[in-house]
């Protein structure tokens, strides 16, 4: 893809197993995202998705393969993409406001300026009135929203989301997905989501990559041809079901059902 924002090509990663032989965790994984796209990688638990994110995030170095951001090589260089995990990783000794400005603070920017900027966004993230609270006083959904605000304030064009709403209950989760889509649009970020929930994947994405487990490979891609302006009702339409069916089929047997449309 010539106009790719983030491009991952032919990634291989292996590590020393507990009893000797090397274990291949990732085998020949390639995919790419254009600016402002939302892409999901769906696969069974423990399929090496988090390893993949650690490589893209520059925390792990692959055996072979490249990761480029706007054409520049970022292999082994942390700090180029923002990262949000299932655990909110809010620091319990910092107030919400001081938690969300962590990235600019670590980058050496003025704390008071960062605070001001964050304050202006608190309402959009449903956190106004809680800026001086400690994370322990927040609900699970609020904590994840604070974590996302912190991720947005990293000021990176690409955001990796590692099952960010995995620990939330179904209702909160549905509301968060819809809200996340709005945030992505509003802040114009390119996002990659790791999930094992087909509903989330289809609902949020432009494209869903289905991964196999041990080693992780891309088993197939489903292009989501639904309007980008999505409401939660969309999940009840036949078009949504067709896409979901295609994803599920790929997950189950790594094969495409013949009737599924919109595939590449």
């Amino acid at each position, binding site marked *: 893809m010539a106009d790719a924002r983030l491009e991952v090509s032919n990634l291989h990663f292996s590590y020393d197993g507990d009893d000797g032989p090397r274990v291949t965790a990732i085998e020949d994984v390639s995919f790419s995202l254009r600016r402002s796209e939302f892409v999901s990688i769906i696969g069974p638990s423990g399929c090496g998705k988090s390893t993949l994110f650690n490589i893209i995030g520059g925390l792990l170095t692959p055996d072979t393969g490249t990761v480029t951001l706007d054409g520049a090589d970022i292999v082994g260089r942390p700090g180029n993409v923002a990262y949000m995990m299932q655990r909110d990783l809010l620091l319990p000794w910092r107030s919400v406001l001081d938690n969300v400005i962590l990235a600019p603070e*670590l*980058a050496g920017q003025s704390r008071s300026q960062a605070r001001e900027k964050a304050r202006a966004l608190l309402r959009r993230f449903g956190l106004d009135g809680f800026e001086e609270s400690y994370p*322990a*006083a*927040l*609900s699970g959904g609020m904590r994840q929203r604070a974590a996302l605000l912190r991720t947005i304030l990293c000021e990176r064009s690409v955001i990796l989301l590692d099952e960010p709403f995995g620990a*939330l*209950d179904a209702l909160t989760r549905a509301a968060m997905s819809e809200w996340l889509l709005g945030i992505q649009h509003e802040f114009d970020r390119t996002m990659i989501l790791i999930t094992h929930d087909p509903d989330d994947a289809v609902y949020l994405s432009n494209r869903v990559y289905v991964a196999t487990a041990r080693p992780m490979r891309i088993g197939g891609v489903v292009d989501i041809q639904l309007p980008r302006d999505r409401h939660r009702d969309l999940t009840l339409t036949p078009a949504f079901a067709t896409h979901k069916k295609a994803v599920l089929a790929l997950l189950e047997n790594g094969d495409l059902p013949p009737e599924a449309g919109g595939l590449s």
Partner: protein
Amino acid sequence: MAGRDRRRFSKAKDIAAPLVLMFAILLSWEILVRLLEVPKFVLPAPSEIVAEMFGSWAIIFGQLRVTLFEILTGYFLAVVVGFLLSILIVYSNSFRRGVLPLIVASQTIPVIAIAPVLVIWFGYNYVPRILITALVAFFPLTVSIVTGLQSLDKDFINFFRSLNASPLQLFLKLRFPAALPNIFAGLKVATTLAVVGATISEWVGASAGLGYLMAQDTQQLNTARVFAALVVLVLCGMGFFGIVGLVERLAMPWAHGRMSAVRYFSQRPAAEIVPKAAR
């Protein structure tokens, strides 16, 4: 409102319970000593101990100043050494492998054995006593600090690394604050050990201090004053412990709400810990 009243009542009960228990113990002690006519040099009654405390006020408090100086200086030394050792242990593998066995060995030496040697080396002054106090207090403190600094979850470290944090930022903004609960646990234990250490050091080689006074009085069967000095020492130890506990509360306001830091770091699904009021 009713809930708040009940909470206030239960708090009053929390304070009252140990006081009632202590009073009961002292009362039975007093009654038994009088009934059984236990000689004063074997076991003085609480009333006699209190009388002795007021009678020997000047002597006891004169000696207390000496001991208090040793406790505080030894404690301070233990804290400084404990922090330096902990950081070296956490950040240097070769230091950990080489020096940790020596530190453990230092703890197996009986204080009673090493104290006279230290007196030979440093003379009949404050130095050996401060060293012994520090020697007794620094080890559990060091263990606590090391545990605290290493307790950090890998996810937090990876998260900081993904933000390009420098090693110094990682320490100051993550490792150190995350270790505070353990550090304060160690600091509190060390207060009581410093009191014990200072007293023992005086027992073995000193010409002043509460430990010295107690050693003298024991020999002269002045048991009431031994107990009086002990009570003063205990009160000092408790006060010291309380002050460090107060500093802890001020330093970690975030940990004195709904849940402990330990629980936070062994993190559960977020939904479980949400207080009802916040939902």
